[in-house]
Every structure is written in structure tokens, then in C-alpha cells.
């Protein structure tokens, strides 16, 4: 019995302590991995916020649709429909006005509204290519939100 207490019990205590220490180390590793994942997630969220681009407009969508619908008249010309351009009909008038009304459009980049007109007007060709490459990729992918107020 004394032999059992002197030999077996210390061995069992050592094994038990080692097991507890190992569990503690596994737990620490899991917490470290979780921290790393949270850091990566933060970085992705931060990146997504910076690339989010939103078009903004002061032009109401129904008015746009109303003006756009008119070119149907122009899509069905006939051979003898040679109107003098000076004699523009009411249907012809809204087309140039659309561009004028939309010049106040802008986009939001990194949380700030930016005047798209001035940005595009001052871009170099290379910058313009990069701009549209980003815009075209973003369109329809969910990164670029297009809406009319």
C-alpha cells in the first residue's frame, strides 16, 4: 500500500497536471487563431468600406423614365420622314435636357460624396481607364449601388 502511494499517486498527479497544461495550451492556440480571424475580418470589412461607391442623384427616377420614353418616336423613322432639325417636335426636346439634369450626379468614395463630373474631367487617360475598370467591375457585383433619390 505504501509502495502504491509512493509511486502510483505521484505518477498520476504528474499525468493529470500535464493533461491540464496541454488543454490550456490548446485553448490558447484556439484563442490566437480566433484573434487572427477577427483581424482578417476587420481588414476585409475595412477594405469593403473603402471600395464602396455609390452614385447619387438629385434627379428623380420617374422623371428620367418619362424623358427617356420619348425617343421611341425617333426609333421609327420612315424614308419620307425628313424633318428639318430646326423644326424639332416636343418629343425631340427632352433628350439634351437629360444630360443637363444629370450633371449634378456624384459618387461616394470612402464615405465622402465626390463630384464625379470634375473628377472625370481632370483624369488622365490612364486614370480614366483605371476608374472605369473599377466601376465596370463594381457595377452589378453589389459593390456599386446605383440609385436615384
Amino acid at each position: 500500500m505504501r509502495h502504491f502511494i509512493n509511486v502510483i499517486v505521484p505518477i498520476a498527479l504528474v499525468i493529470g497536471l500535464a493533461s491540464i497544461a496541454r488543454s490550456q495550451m490548446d485553448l490558447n492556440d484556439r484563442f490566437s487563431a480566433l484573434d487572427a480571424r477577427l483581424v482578417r475580418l476587420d481588414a476585409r470589412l475595412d477594405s469593403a468600406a473603402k471600395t464602396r461607391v455609390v452614385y447619387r442623384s438629385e434627379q428623380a427616377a420617374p422623371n428620367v423614365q418619362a424623358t427617356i420614353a420619348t425617343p421611341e418616336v425617333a426609333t421609327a423613322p420612315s424614308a419620307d420622314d425628313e424633318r428639318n432639325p430646326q423644326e424639332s417636335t416636343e418629343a425631340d426636346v427632352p433628350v439634351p435636357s437629360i444630360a443637363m439634369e444629370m450633371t449634378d450626379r456624384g459618387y461616394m468614395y470612402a464615405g465622402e460624396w465626390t463630384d464625379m463630373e470634375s473628377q472625370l474631367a481632370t483624369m488622365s487617360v490612364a486614370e480614366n481607364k483605371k476608374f472605369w475598370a473599377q466601376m465596370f467591375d463594381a457595377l452589378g457585383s453589389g459593390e456599386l449601388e446605383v440609385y436615384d433619390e
Partner: protein
Amino acid sequence: MTISIKRHLLPGVLAAAAMFCSIPSQAAQTTFNFVRVGSLTNVDDSAGRWQFDGGNVFRNGAHVGYYIRKKRVSFGVPSSVNKAAVETTVIWKWGNYTFTTQGTHYFGTGAQVGGVSAASVGFTGLQDATYSGNHTTMTITY
């Protein structure tokens, strides 16, 4: 003397080679979808035929603009060729931006090829672009 010239030329040649190698080949592509509003209209004359249509332009399902397209068939081109000159102007939905493509349309398959012939401020990046597609899609390489 020859060695001296070589020594002087070598850095220049190396620099030129480095510049050539560093020229980026960043050809990007984007595809637009055309959805006609109304019907295709033929207008015949003594020299051939015009075809007109127009409608909405989409990018990945997002409505981004409008198009106006005209095709010209000429009796001067043999019927075996079966191609028309095609010109398409895309009016961007926002701002005062447009670009126009010119090319050919093959009636046998509907295939179109060409390039961007005019680009407004805002689309200067498309100035030297080419395109291919058909009457419903246009893939621009710029």
C-alpha cells in the same frame, strides 16, 4: 574604340530593355448588354438599306445607359460578303458622357467587330478600345 562604344551603349540598351519589359499590358474588358426598345426599322433607298434601333444598355444587370444604333447595307458590297457598316452610340445614364463604336455587322451570324471611334470627356480611357459582340452584347477591350 569598339569596346568604349559598347560600354556606353550597354547601359542605354539595358535601360531600354527594362522600360520595354515594364510596359504593362493591362487590357481590361467590359461587356454591355443591349435591350432594344421598339422594333428594328428598315429604311430602303436606291443605294442599299438603313437599319435603325435603340434602347437600354445594361452592365451586369444594372441599367447604365441607352444606345442608338444604325447599320448601313450597300449594294456596292457583294451579297456574299453579307456585311453592313454599324455605328452604335452609347449615352451613359449619368453625366454628359458618351462613346461611339464603329465596325461591321455580319448578317450570317450577327457577329460585330470594330472599335471605339469617338469618346467624350469622361470616357477618354476608351479612346483606343476595340470591341466584338453581336446585336445584344458588346465586349469592349480597352
